[in-house]
C-alpha cells in the first residue's frame, strides 16, 4: 500500500486495537487523528474516539482511560507535546503503558511546521521510552512493537514513537501492513495486573506523599523498568521479526561498522540518506559505517560504549540542539563514553533544524571532512552548526 507516515502510523494503531483515542489536532500530526476518526466512524476499529480541547487533556484522558483498563493511544507534535509535558510524568509515574506518536515539529518562536527532534528529546526526563524511526514502514510496525514493550510487565512504562513531521509524516512510501490475525497473537489484549480503577479492587492512583514516604522508591522502580527496557526492546524486535519478517535492530541499528574507522551516528530520516552515503563511500574504499540510534530512552549507554570502543572518530549528525550545550544526542554520547579505555573522537553536526533540507552531498561532505580528521589527537570546534546562512 502507498501510505504517508501518518497513515502508516494510524493503520498500526488500528491493527493494534487501541481502545480509547483522545487527540487534539496539530500539524503535522493531524492526519493520524483524521484517519483514526475515519476508522472508528466506519466501524473498522472498535474504539472510543475523543476529540478533546487540548493536548494537556488528550494525555489526561489517556491516563484515566488506561488506568481504567483500556488500551489507549494519542498523537501530537511540537507545541502540543510541550503543552502536555506535565502529564507525561503522570503517565509514567502511574506505570501506564500508553503509546503516543510524536510527529516531530520544531518549537516556536519562530514558528514552523517543519521538523526538529528537540520537541521529543526535550521530554527525555519524563520516564517515557522513546524510539525514533526513519520511515513509514518502521512507524507502522513500531506502533505494535511499542504496545508490546510498554505492556511488558518488566517495563510498564509509556512509549513514544517519534518521526519527523512533513519529511516522514506527509510523503508517501510503499508500506506492507501487518496481518491482523498474526498481530492479535503478537499483541494480546491489555489485562493490567498492576494498576486498575475498579470498584472491586479499590486503589488510589497518583497519591500525595507527605514527608519522606516512598517517592524515591517510586522513581527507582521506574529506573528498573527503564533498565529492563534495554533488554525488552531488542527481544520484541526479534519476536516481531519471527512473526512478520521485518527487523529494525532494537536499540540501534548498525551498518558496516566491523572494520570502520569512522562512524556516522544519526537518528530519524537522516539515517536513510546517511546509509546511502556510507554505501557509496565504502565503494570508494573508505572505512566508514553507520549507527542509526533508535532508542533514546533508555539510552543504550553500555551497548554503544562497547561497539564504539575501537572506532577512531564518531560524527553525530542530529536535527536538534540544546542551546548552550550542543546536540542532545551528542551530549548523551559524551557521557556514555566518558572513562572508556579507547574512546573515539566525537564531532557533532547540528543540522536540518526547522526542516532545512539535508542532501546526500551534504552528508557525503561531512563524512569526508570527518574522515580526514580521524587520526588526530583532538578536534577543533567539536560542535559544528552545519549550513547556517552567514556562517562560513
Amino acid at each position: 500500500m502507498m501510505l504517508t507516515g501518518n497513515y502508516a502510523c494510524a493503520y498500526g494503531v488500528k491493527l493494534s486495537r487501541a481502545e480509547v483515542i483522545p487527540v487534539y489536532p496539530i500539524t503535522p500530526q493531524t492526519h493520524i487523528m483524521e484517519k483514526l476518526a475515519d476508522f472508528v466512524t466506519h466501524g473498522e476499529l472498535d474504539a472510543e474516539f475523543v476529540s478533546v480541547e487540548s493536548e494537556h487533556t488528550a494525555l489526561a484522558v489517556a491516563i484515566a482511560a488506561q488506568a481504567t483498563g483500556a488500551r489507549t493511544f494519542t498523537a501530537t507534535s511540537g507545541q502540543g507535546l510541550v503543552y502536555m509535558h506535565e502529564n507525561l510524568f503522570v503517565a509514567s509515574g502511574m506505570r501506564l503503558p500508553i503509546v503516543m506518536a510524536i510527529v516531530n515539529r520544531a518549537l516556536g518562536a519562530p514558528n514552523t511546521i517543519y521538523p526538529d527532534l528537540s520537541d521529543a528529546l526535550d521530554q527525555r526526563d519524563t520516564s517515557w521510552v522513546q524510539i525514533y524511526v526513519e520511515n513509514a514502514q518502521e512507524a507502522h510496525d513500531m506502533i505494535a512493537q511499542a504496545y508490546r514493550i510498554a505492556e511488558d510487565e518488566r517495563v510498564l512504562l509509556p512509549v513514544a514513537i517519534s518521526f519527523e513531521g512533513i519529511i516522514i509524516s506527509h510523503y508517501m512510501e510503499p508500506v506492507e501492513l501487518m496481518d491482523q490475525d498474526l498481530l492479535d497473537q503478537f499483541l494480546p489484549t491489555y489485562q493490567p495486573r498492576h494498576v486498575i480503577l475498579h470498584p472491586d479492587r479499590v486503589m488510589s492512583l497518583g497519591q500525595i506523599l507527605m514527608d519522606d514516604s516512598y517517592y524515591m522508591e517510586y522513581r527507582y522502580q521506574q529506573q528498573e523498568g527503564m533498565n529492563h527496557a534495554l533488554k525488552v526492546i531488542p527481544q520484541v524486535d526479534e519476536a516481531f521479526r519471527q512473526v512478520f519478517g521485518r527487523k529494525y535492530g532494537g536499540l540501534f541499528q548498525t551498518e558496516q561498522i566491523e572494520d570502520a574507522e569512522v562512524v556516522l551516528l544519526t537518528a530519524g530520516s537522516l539515517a536513510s540518506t546517511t546509509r546511502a552515503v556510507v554505501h557509496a563511500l565504502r565503494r570508494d574504499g573508505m572505512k566508514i559505517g553507520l549507527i542509526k540510534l533508535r532508542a533514546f530512552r533508555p539510552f543504550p549507554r553500555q551497548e554503544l560504549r562497547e561497539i564504539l570502543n575501537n572506532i577512531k572518530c564518531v560524527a553525530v549528525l542530529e536535527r536538534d540542539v540544546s542551546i548552550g550545550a550542543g546536540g542532545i544526542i551528542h551530549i548523551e554520547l559524551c557521557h556514555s563514553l566518558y572513562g572508556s579505555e579507547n574512546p573515539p573522537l566525537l564531532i557533532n553536526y547540528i543540522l536540518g533544524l526547522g526542516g532545512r533540507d539535508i542532501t546526500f552531498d551534504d552528508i557525503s561532505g561531512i563524512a569526508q571532512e570527518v574522515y580526514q580528521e580521524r587520526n588526530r589527537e583532538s578536534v577543533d570546534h567539536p560542535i559544528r552548526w552545519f549550513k547556517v546562512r552567514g556562517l562560513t
Partner: protein
Amino acid sequence: MNNLSKELSKEELFHSGHPLCPGCSGGVMSRWITKILGKDTIATISASCMAIATSVYPHVLEIPSIYIAMAPSPAGITGVSAALRILKRKGRFPKDRKVNVIAISGDGSAGDIGMACLSGAAERNDDGIFFCFDNEAYMNTGIQRSGCTPEMSWTTSTLEGKQERKKDLPRIMAAHNIPYVATVSIGFPEDFIRKVTRAKEMGPGFKYIHVYSPCPTGWRFPENKTIEVARLGVETGFWILYEMEHGCLKLNCRPEKLRPIQDFISTQGRFGKLSEEQVQTYQQEIDKRLKQMENLERCQT
C-alpha cells in the same frame, strides 16, 4: 425535618481522621457524596483541599480514585467513562453494572486553571458528575485569590480586598446546555442529597454540581460556625440555590424574606474592612442578581 441518618447509608466510605482543617465543609461534603453514590463509583480528584483529604496515604476514599494533575479532573470523567464503555462493549466489564464516574475539584482548579478542560468535557457531554468544591479561594496553598473569590474579600494575594467580581461558574456551565446544573450548600443537607441523587439517577451526560463551602480558615470565622455561615449565605441571598434540568431553571430553598447581607458579611474576618457604603453596594449587587435569577425562572414558563 427528615433525619439524615435515616436518609443516608450507614456505610462510611470517607473516614474520620482526615487532615482537613477543623470545621471544614469538605469533610461533610465528601462524606455525603460517597454515602449517596456508594461503592460503585470511580473518582478523579484534582489539586485542591480535597486532594489532601482523599489522596494522602492513609486518608483515602474507599472508592477507586485517581489524581492526575491540577487542571484535568474533568478529563478523568472523560477517560474513565470512555474506557468503561469500550470495556463493556468488549465484555471485559459487566454490561449491566452501573458505575458512577465523578470528579471533585476546587474552585480554582475547576474555574481557573481547569476551565478549558471543564468546558471541553461539558461540551462533549461526557458521562459523569462534576463537583466543584467552592471555598472561594486557593485555600490549600494558603488563601490566595481565585476567580471565584467574591468582590471585596481579603486573601493573601488581595490584601485590600479583591477588586473584581466572583466568576459565576454554575451559569457558565449552564450555558453549555448540559443535562443538569445545580448549586448546593452544606448548610442545606436535604437539598444537597436530593440534587446529588437526581444527578446519579439521570441518564448519561455531564452533570455539574457547585458546592458552596464555607472555609473557617480562609474566611476567618470560628470553626464551629461553618453550618451557620453556610445557611446565612443562602438566607441573605449571597449564594442562591437552584437547579437547571435540561435547561429548565428552578430556584430552591427560598427564604420568605431575605436577611440583610450585613448578617453574612459580619460573620467573617475576610470582609473586615468594608465600609458602610461598600456594604450597601454589595446589597444592591445581591438584590440585582437575585432579581435576574427570579426573572429568568419566571420568563421560561
